């Protein structure tokens, strides 16, 4: 993966490598993921949301794309589903694997790879899900194409992410990703849900639905430490979902 040159764009910038390095550093640095609190109110909120959107009485085969250190992966596993986590960052996966081991989740798979070109052997799946990933994809259409191919006919592709205010973007420019990466992320700059809905529609998914998750905004805002609230106030969570046509 690390020696792949396939992600270098036609301006010669390997965005995937920059993104991977950023998250590897984050996994051990100041942005190290906090405790995976999936028992608190925030964890409960995700349990409620996921059980609403995946109303199955039997376990589903789910791929969590951009799983990071595994918050969503563990929440889905706690709901009883069979989950595989996929992430570009080996550093994040290490954090996730240590947590999986601590919890005794032996059959949880955490694999390395990109959202746009996932490794083989992952499908067919009932659901492909991502959380806080769409914004960081330089080529979201390729990712949706790959996810479409991974779910079985009738399966669901689900994304949860947030719209960010101009103000928040200006305040963080260059601090997270370098400016040339931020410049090339189409969904990071979205002001409304049309680009996201269109992304799902363009991939051939049907029954496409988008909606703002104002209640999740309120939960996140109330749960983060007070110094993070100026940031969370400028995030607007949303969901997008669609179904691969049966034929």
């Amino acid at each position, binding site marked *: 993966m690390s020696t792949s040159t396939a992600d270098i764009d036609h301006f010669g910038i390997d965005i995937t490598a920059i993104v991977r390095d950023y998250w590897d550093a984050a996994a051990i640095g100041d942005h190290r993921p906090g405790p995976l609190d999936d028992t608190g109110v925030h964890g409960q909120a995700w349990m409620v949301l996921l059980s609403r959107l995946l109303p199955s009485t039997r376990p589903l085969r789910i791929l969590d794309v951009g799983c990071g250190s595994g918050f969503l992966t563990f929440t889905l596993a706690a709901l009883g589903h069979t989950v595989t986590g996929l992430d570009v960052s080996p550093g994040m996966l290490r954090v996730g694997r240590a947590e999986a081991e601590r919890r005794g989740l032996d059959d949880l798979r955490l694999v390395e790879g990109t959202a746009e070109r996932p490794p083989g052997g992952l499908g067919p799946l009932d659901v492909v899900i991502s959380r806080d990933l769409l914004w960081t994809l330089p080529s979201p259409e390729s990712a949706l194409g790959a996810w479409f191919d991974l779910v079985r006919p009738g399966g669901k592709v689900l994304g949860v992410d947030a719209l960010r205010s101009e103000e928040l973007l200006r305040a963080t420019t260059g601090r997270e990703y370098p400016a040339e990466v931020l410049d090339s992320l189409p969904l990071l700059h979205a002001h409304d849900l049309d680009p996201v809905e269109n992304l799902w529609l363009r991939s051939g998914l049907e029954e496409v639905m988008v909606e703002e998750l104002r*209640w999740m905004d309120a939960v996140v805002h109330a749960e983060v430490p007070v110094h993070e609230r100026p940031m969370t106030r400028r995030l607007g969570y949303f969901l997008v979902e669609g179904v691969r046509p049966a034929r």
Partner: protein
Amino acid sequence: MNTGPLGTAQLQADMAESMQRYWDATAESYAGHDHFEPDDPRRRAWSLLLARMFPPTEPKKILDVGCGSGFVALSLAELGHRVVGLDISPEMLRMCGTAAEVRGLTNLALVRGAAEQPPPDLGPVDAVISRHVLWTLPWPEQAVRAWAALVRPGGRVVAIDSLWSPQLISDMDDRDYPPEVTRFLPLLHARHLNPARNLWRRAGLGRVMAERLAWIDGVLRTRSPAAAATMYQNLSFYFVEGIRPVSPRPDLHRGVI
């Protein structure tokens, strides 16, 4: 019987208990809140709305889910429909029954049960309606699926609810709804109609429509006493409706993923 999704049985049971306790404790004050006298222009507006949705010239069998003290159920019965009112709270049902007696209505039956899990033998009906129920539900998809299952193919599922101003939501406290439930309510916090529309689509209903009831808002804001008028400034009513398809497409949203 747990018909809920995988892994959330305990969370659902805890929240259901909080909600039941709340509604039982609230029955009396709630009935007073929405009680309009027969000649009240606000009651007239609501009745005109319901008559547009369910014309008295075409009498139907209608289930009013979460009927409370009977705001919708009584109006529909007065329009000549055969109505069944369903509510979780025995106290609410008692008040609704009394009001029906006072008005001499014999075409209204009352049943105790939860909005999310209505007794299956209540169907098939021509339509299911609810008013100010959606916002109270942490798992609204489950409820709408259950309502869709109760209407006959070709029948309608209709709900009336309102978008709440952020101010009104932040003013809510445990007298208004249990806080441990309030924070998870998708429709209470919604600012647009998409979340409601999507519930109907996820339930497999067809011809889904949603619209703001600016007309009702206008009547409530201009024809209410000052305190209530201020409250109505912070609410905007809407409805959402859909039809149960005669031949549904196989679809994962309804729990058969």
